[in-house]
């Protein structure tokens, strides 16, 4: 694995929506590298013919029936919101269009 650069860390921080300080960027660049090197050993044993396990206990087809039930009272939803206006969650202006 290639070493993690400071600009890699900046890119990751942007993806992860973390407003890291300059010191943090430097700090994590070093630490991530060490950690990833130490975990890179997993590639040594994981051969192509080994199936991945995403669930520890294999299960299939767990469904619920299509029956609607009332959700939460809006007052309760509003009470937990950082900002609320006109029965909706208020959020700051959006720059990125999705």
């Amino acid at each position: 694995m290639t070493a993690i650069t400071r600009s890699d860390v900046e890119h990751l921080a942007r993806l992860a929506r973390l407003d890291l300080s300059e010191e943090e960027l430097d700090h994590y660049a070093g630490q991530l590298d060490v950690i990833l090197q130490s975990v890179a050993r997993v590639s040594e044993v994981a051969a192509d013919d080994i199936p991945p396990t995403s669930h520890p206990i294999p299960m299939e087809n767990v469904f619920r029936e299509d029956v609607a039930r009332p959700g939460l009272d809006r007052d309760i939803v509003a009470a937990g919101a950082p900002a609320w206006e006109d029965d909706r969650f208020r959020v700051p202006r959006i720059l990125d269009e999705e």
Partner: protein
Amino acid sequence: MSTVSTDHDTMKYDDVMAVFEPVIGLETHVELGTNSKMFCSCPTAFGAEPNTQVCPVCLGMPGSLPVVNRMAVESTIRMGLALNCSIAPWCRFARKNYFYPDMPKDYQISQYDEPLCFDGYLDVLVDTDDGPRLFRVEIERVHMEEDTGKLTHAGGATGRIHGADYSLVDYNRAGIPLIEIVTKPIAGTGALAPAVAKAYVTELRDLMRSLEVSDVRMEEGSLRCDVNVSLNRPGDEWGTRSETKNVNSLRSVERAVHSEIERQGALLESGGRVIQETRHFHEDTGRSTSGRSKEQAEDYRYFPEPDLVPVAASAEWIEELRGTLPELPSLKRARLQLEWGIGEHELATIVNAGALELVESAVAAGVTPDAARKWWTGELLRVANDREVELADLPVTSAQIRRVEALVADGSLNDKLARQVFDGIISGEGDVDDVIAGRGLAIVSDDSSLIAAIDEALAAQPDVADKIRGGKVQAAGAIVGAVMKATRGQADAAKVRALLLERLGVVE
């Protein structure tokens, strides 16, 4: 009305087509018509008060967990079968990670490299100058995912996202099941690309309705398309494609492909280069503006959703679902063509007008196939186009068409008056008889008042009267015309003619 400036020049469509070939692709998202959401039991009713159909799961609250709606899976499989897809014997949900305030968990539960349905096709009929043509649109995949919340932009001048001071989020829509249908690249359409795109989406819509997996209310935004377009010179490799998002009506699908072809054509002809980017379509202008380029694209970091277990569709389950499929639109069209006794071209006209179901329901209500077709693909289609609405959204019922036809048949109305009746209905003047009464449209069928009008016309034009009496029957037209004028068109011309000849004692 638009404040958005387009950031591009265009070239005339036919000029572009003289030089380039288009390749298009469509990604269509449709909300399924389930009672409850994809991963929680919240109701899905449209138009509810904001944030009243939410719970810890669809608000993405810490600790909450998703559970898959069986009906949504079955609807997706049925749709896959109707699209001639293979159904995956085993597949998983995946998380698509990106931050956006309308997405409660900041990831969307979707499917990634293991879609539930894949490798299918849909045949669509497009009306051309040389008669109808059949195109096979190949389907790459059909998968399940969840919808996002709805944003309202506040402040600023336009109500648009740009320039807004802040936004408001209603999560009622968050978690409503979506089906995503992705085509393979569609090449070989030539100049028909916009028509093929529209025909494909129309066909998808009809298919969903006939399967009853969704009633596809376009005006409520329950069907959304992303349109990919690229151009290449004949013989060359396919060009770089753009992806136009936010294309939310049948008409817009056609317009979006059309305008993107014009834009790319101008760009390429002037020596420019198409960049791989996301563009945003604006319904008001029919044009798109540049969004995010792929260079700054998100990295969605997909991985299998650990909170859900795989979906394993057994052969028995698939066959059971196949058994519930209704008559599919393509077969239905062939049947109706026979039943209605019409040609392929007439049928293509009906289909392209998006009028198949309308004609069908009119016929079921007792209107003759000819009359139903005539009204829906003629006058009513013209009005819909004028008003820039979908045909099905016109407030005209089968019963009204039947009533108008009955009045025409018994001579109470003629075609011209009938058109005025529909104009009145669409303008909200009430039902057929209300409009007739309100506008005073009934044909003058009272013999004595017609005879009075005839006598008046004869007195005004004595020379013409003499000619007719002398056997020049073709001169009768002048008198008939005068009578029609006097009755403001509300007379049956044939009847006026007969009465006139009888009055003058002339036998044809």
